């Protein structure tokens, strides 16, 4: 298994609390900022499946212990597997994780995720697809994969592409951090509740004896408030973001940002350009294309495609940036990755195409998502 090399968990990594009709799942892996281990994913799958059948459960609350909701998937373990020549173990990790994402996206009962802290990568995957996402003043959201040599996965090509204008391309390519107010403004969060009121909110949610989203929403509304966007918020720069991040290619995006920067001195624009230039060129290319394709696909199709992509990343035939990115950011922490290909212009369309094709391996299979009897309209698309 993906993290089979790590020491066995001393206590449950997912705690469960049962209160009347509500079940609260609490990520409990605080030292790793609640990064999702393989065991946690398996446990979550079991719990979600059981609760769907259990008519005594009307509502699922998900939160994290400590200062993180969940900082992502346990990529360190996956990279260890790759280095030991076991990319298929990593693929198995993602298959389970994406299946969980799909289950959440098509879940028949409301899920309330309390995002009181860090929400990154895999953490977004187990919350944003759910019905209600409650942000607080402690929320920090990011999809930082492009800087790691990966790409925004866990169904991000579905939810990022549905943000207003081209904000999703911005968030996905730059890995920019959003606070709770920004999450609410762009729609990643459905509510903003000050952390001081969270325990009251949870108490109120325990008493809900209905799965009607309208009723649940009304309760959360009572504890919500309208936060102020900070003056330097990226969300106030939507005009520039739409103008530049709507361009057809990564190169076009960067050059249109550079044109903007030439017209006026603007720290935010130059910082954005710097971030893009530091990220893995291959990651930027496949991330952009993934988000663009996601815009026209249902969540299931997005996950199937992302699974193909992630297997190519793990296989490392076109680029080994994922291993290099993890080395530079997570292991050696020198923050100086050596990307290969090193520049956007060295990447041909055919190289990008490879990531979207079937994996050429006898044992490899496409991601097979479970058939769901209840599927909301927006979860389905044709192609």
């Amino acid at each position: 298994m993906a993290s089979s090399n790590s020491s066995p968990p001393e206590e449950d990594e997912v705690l469960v609390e049962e209160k009347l009709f509500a079940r609260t799942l609490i990520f409990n892996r605080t030292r790793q900022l609640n990064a999702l281990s393989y065991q946690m994913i398996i446990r979550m799958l079991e719990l979600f499946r059981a609760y769907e059948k259990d008519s005594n459960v009307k509502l699922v609350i998900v939160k994290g212990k400590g200062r993180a909701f969940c900082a992502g998937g346990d990529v360190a373990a996956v990279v260890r597997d790759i280095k030991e020549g076991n990319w298929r173990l990593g693929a198995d990790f993602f298959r389970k994780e994406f299946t969980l994402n799909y289950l959440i996206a098509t879940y028949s009962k409301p899920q309330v995720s309390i995002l009181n802290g860090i929400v990154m990568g895999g953490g977004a995957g187990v919350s944003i697809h759910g019905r209600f996402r409650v942000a607080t003043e402690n929320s920090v959201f990011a999809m930082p994969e492009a800087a790691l040599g990966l790409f925004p996965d866990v169904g991000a090509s579905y939810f990022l592409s549905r943000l207003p204008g081209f904000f999703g391309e911005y968030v996905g390519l730059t890995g920019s951090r959003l606070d709770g107010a920004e999450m609410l403004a762009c729609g990643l969060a459905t509510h903003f509740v000050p952390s001081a009121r969270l325990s009251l909110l949870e108490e109120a949610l325990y008493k809900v004896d209905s799965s009607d989203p309208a009723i649940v929403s009304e309760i959360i509304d009572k504890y919500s408030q309208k936060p102020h966007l900070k003056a330097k918020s990226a969300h106030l720069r939507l005009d520039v973001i739409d103008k530049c991040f709507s361009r057809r290619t990564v190169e076009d995006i960067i050059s249109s940002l550079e044109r903007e920067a030439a017209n006026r001195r603007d720290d935010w624009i130059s910082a954005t350009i710097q971030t893009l230039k530091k990220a893995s060129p291959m990651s930027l290319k496949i991330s952009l294309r993934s988000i663009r394709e996601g815009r026209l696909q249902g969540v299931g199709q997005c996950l199937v495609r992302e699974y193909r992509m992630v297997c190519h990343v793990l296989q490392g035939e076109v680029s080994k940036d994922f291993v290099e990115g993890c080395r530079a950011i997570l292991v050696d922490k020198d923050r100086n990755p050596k990307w290969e290909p090193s520049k956007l212009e060295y990447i041909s369309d055919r190289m990008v195409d490879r990531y979207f094709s079937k994996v050429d391996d006898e044992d490899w299979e496409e991601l097979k998502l479970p058939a769901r009897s209840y599927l909301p309209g927006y979860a389905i698309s044709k192609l």
Partner: protein
Amino acid sequence: MDRVSRRTRVLTNHLIGPPPETLLAANPCLNYSPPELSEPSEFDPKAMRSLLDAHNLQQRDWLFGLLIQSPLFNPRTAAGKVFVSPDYNQSMQQQREMTMKRITYLLDRGVFHGWLTEKGPEAEMRKFAFFEVIGIYDHSLAVKLGVHFFLWGGAIQFFGTKRHHDKWLRDTENYAIKGCFAMSELGHGSNVRGIETVTTYDKNTGEFVISTPCESAQKYWIGGAANHATHTIVFSQLNINGSNQGVHAFIAQIRDADGNVCPDIRIADCGHKIGLNGVDNGRIWFDNVRIPRENLLNSVADVSLDGQYLSSIKDPDQRFAAFLAPLTSGRVTISVSAIYSSKISLAIAIRYALTRRAFSLTPNGPEVLLLDYPSHQRRLLPLLAKTYAMSFAANYLKEIYVKRTPESNKTIHVVSSAFKATLTWHNMRTLQECREACGGQGLKTENRVGHMKAEYDVQSTFEGDNNVLMQQVSKALLAEYIAVQKKNKPFKGLGLEHMNGAHPVIPSQLTSSTLGSSQFQMDAFCLRERDLLNRFSMEVSQHQKHGQSKEHAFILSYQLAEDLGRAFSDRAILQTFLDAEATIPDVFGKLRSMYALICLEEEAAFLRYGYLSMENAAAIRKEVTKLCSELRPHALALVSSFGIPDAFLSPIAFNWIDSNSWSSTQH
């Protein structure tokens, strides 16, 4: 009470999911079940889409995304899904302004980059791909762009010389100027040679003087003229020293940069139309408008400073033919857009027919899905097969157009005329059938199908009336026929080579496997074309023998001319389908057979002239029913393969119960 409880029982039978004992209590209502759950696909719709769209798939998807993401394209949410479509409830003037704003948005995103300044098949195909995507969103937006880029821009490219290209093309691409194309007049539409606008040359000032001598000479239906255009191409008779040199094209400015109408120009609005109200069609009068000598588009003919008429083409007929070149590109884009329109309406009607039920076969049985009725299959699936066939025909037309050479001009002219007429007629028929197949829901503007009838009706008229175009096809075929007889050479080109071979024979007993063979299908189509061409030429020469002029003889033989035009078109379409088929799965053979057999069944000429016997016709009719049931399981995958994003379909194509729920009205 009995009726009520019976009705409840019937309805509960439709429920999917909950265990039977809770049925009555839980939810005595109809449930929407997404067709994806019950209709597995036996082929990969993505692969099929790449065959249908054929080129620039990623760029198309980028542009789809660009439209979905901007509030300018009027996104609305229904049952959790976003749909984009213009607000047709806006006034005509508002719709026109929105069209212009959308153009500006696309311009700023670089969509039009290279549309006029880049050359070569690759650039042209990309331009076509973008144009098709835009047309899927809104016909007005496409037409307004088409006028600016293909007609105004095309006229400068084709009729102009370097000085015009340098001066106008970049400014056109950047919308520094806005062009229109003044060809039609109140008194003359398809007969361009008869237009009455007159231009003379004043050698004292070195200027041309354009005038509208009478009311019937006012320019009419000029897209862009009513509100936005700053410049126009003017088609006019050129009168030099009292002698008429025929129709020529000039550039005239009609508005200044602030949008004020120029002196000696009068402009009036064509007013509200049955569709395309996002396009500002106008009328123009020229009161001795003076333009510089350089504004004559002089690739074909020129006037020297001292007023001498100079032309490399001496024959006025040929000179005139050269002027119609930009209309060819119009016919190409119209043909293609007609097919995309059919695809939209079929995707909507078929998705609806896979989720909507009506009537039970047994007293307590579940109601039957619309598409499970053989009659509903017969209404929609042959149109689906035709749309597939014509999709390949449209791709073929695009291909020969972008690879055009002086030698291929005739083929392009004949094929584009035939396809433009056939494909746009097919589209109108498809829209009407799909509208009816959606029942009352088809009448809602938000569901697109019904509204598109009004938006696309114009296609059978602009860029050449369909009937006139089909006559031109027959005329061209007759000319070819006469030339072959005179020179005693075999037929070459226009796909007429089959005329050189032996007369095909249709077997008297048609088995299912014969009916499905491409050999038989092609034989039947060729037989019809061959015989009609023979008959047509015979009838025309008979009339001529009785003293009629060639022109009049042609008019008298209109019935055969129409039959022949259709025969040519159908055969050419079948050929493109067969060429595409080499690469594709099994379902393709069924579609092709459906296309061929439905033509055999519907076209009266096969029985009228005895190409098929009554027994043949009965066998074909039976086979069509069989093909309907064989295509039925593929229906969803076949429309999914059109690659039209959900946002460009409509609420009834998805969860139409949720999108019509009470809560959806409470915002």
